[in-house]
């Protein structure tokens, strides 16, 4: 199980990576913005999930999601953000986000969101 984790905050990447590792994710590839994320993502082969922040320098999360979907890739994507305004949520869904986690969150909320979109190898 391989996850691309995109956030400009190193601390937030650590928190989310810890949540992923507590589940069945063994490999977490980290990127600090959308540009770096797209380079690491390539054609998406081998990745099972993208978790991305919205508000980032260079290329934000919404632009990243749009770019991934424009390539035809249907990988599950979770957006983690402080944005909750209806218009913003609709923008994210229209861009192709599968689920949404609002900051602040606790470990249980994070786990719930990850479990909802991560393919569980035990059920395969």
């Amino acid at each position: 199980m391989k996850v691309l984790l995109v956030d400009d905050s190193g601390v937030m990447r650590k928190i989310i990576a810890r949540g992923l590792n507590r589940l069945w994710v063994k490999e977490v590839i980290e990127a600090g913005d959308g540009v770096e994320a797209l380079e690491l993502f390539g054609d998406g082969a081998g990745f099972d999930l993208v978790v991305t922040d919205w508000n980032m320098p260079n290329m934000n999360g919404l632009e990243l999601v749009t770019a991934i979907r424009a390539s035809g890739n249907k990988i599950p994507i979770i957006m983690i953000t402080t944005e909750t305004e209806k218009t913003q949520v609709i923008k994210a869904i229209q861009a192709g986000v599968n689920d949404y986690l609002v900051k602040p969150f606790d470990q249980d909320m994070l786990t719930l969101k990850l479990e909802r979109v991560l393919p569980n190898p035990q059920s395969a």
Partner: protein
Amino acid sequence: MQLTIDADTSIIGAFDDAIREIFDMMIGESLHQSRMDYLVDWLQNVPKTEPALTVVVGLTGGLEGAVAITLCKEAALKWTNGLLDSAATSFDQDVIDAAGELGNMVVGGAKRRLSEYGLTMTLPNVFCAGSDSMAFPSSAKPLQVSYDFSGATVSIVTSLNKVTS
């Protein structure tokens, strides 16, 4: 138009609610408000040498200006160690990043509660200084609200003007 405590308790309340929720949810700490006052004589302040971090986030929209969140050293370390289950004893990149994330979440949380203003926020910038090192333009009337938790202090300084179109 400058903000006043009496007229704009909803704005102060939004930041108050946001920071309390974040500390409770992310590291299980309850904040106790200890002080609220306008920073009127910052030019007379002699910067203290006590280490502190300040994260500044700009806002535009129906309110314009900046919000600064200052953490004393103890607060910055407790916040970081609570987030990461770590044992930092001095400022490092994790502590800086954690302060930045706190600013992002507090201002984001307040923005969510102040949706009628249609606010847009900038990325956070972190400075290795406390609120005693801040200075403001003469048009500003910054308000500081301080909180204590577990022997540490965190403060929010709002310097915002309402935009009248």
